[in-house]
C-alpha cells in the first residue's frame, strides 16, 4: 500500500515538474542558509569551549618598569584573590618566543628590530575560575606599573556577541524563507490536486478511504521536503570537507580545531531533514485540508 502511495507521489512530482523544481529549490535555498548557519554555530560553540579552556590574561608592563619593580608587581598580583598562577615573561624571553613562533624563515624581519624597544615585559595570569577572567583583568589594570591588560575573554565575548546577532538575523531570515517555501509547496500540492481532480472524484465514488486519497499528495509534499534537504546537505558537507582538508582541521587566525566532518554531518543531516520534512508536511496539509474535501 505504501508502495503505491510513494509511486503516485513520485508521479505527481514529475508530472508537475516546474512547480516541483520551484518548491524543491525554495526548500533547498532555505536549508542551505540554515545549514551554513548551523555549521558556524556548531563551530562557534567549539571555539568558545576551546578558548575558555586556555583563557589567560596577558598583562603588559610599562616600558620604564625595572626588573625589580616587575618582581614586586608579580608578587602583588599573586596575592590577589581568585588567581591561579602568574608567569613572568621578560622582554628578552618574549622576543625569543616570538622568534620561535615566527620561525627562522622570517628571521630577517625581526633582525632589524632593537630588542629593547620591541616588546614590553609581560605577565601571563590565569584565573582560578575561567569565568572570572574579565574581573581579574580589571583588578590587575589598577595595579601601578601595569600598562595594558588583554584578556582573551573580551575577544571571545565580542566574537560571540557578533555571532549571536548574526544568528538572530539569520534565524529571522530563515524563518521568512521557510514560510515562503511552505507556501510554494502548498501551492504545488494545490495544483496537483487540481490536475487530478477527476481521479479524486472517482476514488471517492468507488469508496476509497480519505487517507488513501490523501497519501499520494502528502507523499509528494514530503518528497519535496526531503529532496530540498538532501541537496543542500550534500553541498554543505562536501564544501565543509574540502574546507576542513584545506586548512588542515584548524581554523586560521583563532587557531581552534574545527569539528570533524563526521561529527557535524550527522547533526546537520538530522536538523535539515527534520525541517525539510516538517515544511513539506505542513505545506501539504495546508492544501489537502483546503482543496481536498474528502
Amino acid at each position, binding site marked *: 500500500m505504501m508502495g*503505491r502511495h510513494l509511486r503516485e507521489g513520485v508521479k505527481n512530482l514529475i508530472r508537475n515538474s516546474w512547480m516541483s523544481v520551484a518548491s524543491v529549490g525554495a526548500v533547498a535555498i532555505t536549508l542551505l542558509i540554515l545549514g551554513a548557519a548551523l555549521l558556524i554555530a556548531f563551530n562557534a560553540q567549539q571555539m568558545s569551549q576551546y578558548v575558555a579552556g586556555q583563557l589567560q590574561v596577558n598583562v603588559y608592563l610599562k616600558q620604564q618598569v625595572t626588573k625589580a619593580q616587575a618582581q614586586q608587581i608579580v608578587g602583588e598580583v599573586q596575592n590577589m584573590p581568585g588567581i591561579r598562577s602568574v608567569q613572568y615573561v621578560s622582554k628578552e624571553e618574549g622576543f625569543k618566543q616570538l622568534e620561535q613562533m615566527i620561525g627562522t624563515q622570517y628571521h630577517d624581519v625581526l633582525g632589524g628590530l632593537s630588542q629593547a624597544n620591541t616588546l614590553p615585559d609581560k605577565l601571563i595570569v590565569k584565573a582560578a575560575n575561567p569565568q572570572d577572567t574579565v574581573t581579574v583583568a580589571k583588578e590587575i589594570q589598577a595595579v601601578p606599573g601595569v600598562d595594558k591588560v588583554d584578556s582573551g575573554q573580551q575577544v571571545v565575548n565580542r566574537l560571540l556577541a557578533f555571532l549571536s546577532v548574526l544568528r538572530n538575523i539569520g534565524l529571522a531570515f530563515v524563518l521568512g524563507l521557510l514560510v515562503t517555501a511552505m507556501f510554494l509547496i502548498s501551492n504545488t500540492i494545490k495544483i496537483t490536486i487540481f490536475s487530478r481532480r*477527476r481521479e479524486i472524484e*472517482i476514488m471517492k*465514488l*468507488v*469508496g*476509497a*478511504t480519505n487517507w*488513501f*486519497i490523501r497519501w499520494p499528495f502528502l507523499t509528494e509534499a514530503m518528497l519535496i521536503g526531503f529532496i530540498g534537504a538532501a541537496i543542500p546537505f550534500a553541498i554543505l558537507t562536501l564544501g565543509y570537507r574540502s574546507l576542513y582538508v584545506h586548512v588542515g582541521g584548524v581554523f586560521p587566525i583563532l587557531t581552534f580545531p574545527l569539528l570533524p566532518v563526521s561529527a557535524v554531518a550527522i547533526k546537520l543531516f538530522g536538523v535539515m531533514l527534520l525541517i525539510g520534512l516538517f515544511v513539506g508536511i505542513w505545506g501539504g496539509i495546508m492544501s489537502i485540508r483546503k482543496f481536498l474535501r474528502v
Partner: protein
Amino acid sequence: MIEMQNVWKNYPNGTIALQGISVHIGKSDFVYVVGPSGAGKSTFIKLMYREENPTKGEIFVNGFNIGRLKPRKVPLLRRSLGVVFQDFKLLPRLTAYENVAFALEVIGAQRQIKRRVREALDWVGLVDKADVLPEHLSGGEQQRIAIARALVNNPTVIIADEPTGNLDPETSWGIMKVFQRINDRGTTVVMATHNKDIVNTLRKRVIAIENGRIARDEAKGTYEYED
C-alpha cells in the same frame, strides 16, 4: 435495501429540492425515476450514495443510516453500491482494463484483481477492448466500461443518473440490455431517466418526482411526459 422516510433536502442557496419523500425499494427491484428537469431526480440519487446529506428524514441504504453516517464510514457505503453517470467519468489516460481495475486498487483490494476485472468486462461484452483508451471507444462502449467499473466490486445496488442521456437510441438499447442482465442476476437497479421510449417499452416500476414530491409510484408504469 433502500428505505426513505419523509426525506427533505434544502440546498444552502435556499432551493428546496426534495419535500417529504417516502419510498421503499426492495432487493432485485428495477426502478425508473422520472420527472421534469429540476424536479429533484438527481438529488434523490445523490442522497443514496451520500453525495448529499438529507436535511430531514431517514434514509437507509444497504443497512447504512445515511443521515447519521460518519464521514469515515462513507467509503464502506460506496463499496456496497455501483454508480453510473451520463458523462461516464472514465479516466482518459487509462485503458478500459485499467479504468475498471482502478476501482479495485483504490479500495485496497489485492486478490484476483485481474480475474475480477476480466469478469466485469465480460459482463458488459468488452473483453476484447481491454487495452483500448477511452478516446478510441464509442460512447456506448465507454458507458459499458463505466458500468463494468460499477460492477467490479459486486455491489448489491446499481444507481444510474441518466446513463443513456448522451447516447443515440440504438446504443441506449444496448446499455439497457446490460442493466437488464445485471438486474436478472439479482442486483437492484435504480435509474433516473428521460428516455420515454425505454420506460414505455422495457416496463418496470416507475417513480415520478415532481417539484420534490413523489407524484406517482407504479409497478410497470409509464413515462407520461412530453420532452
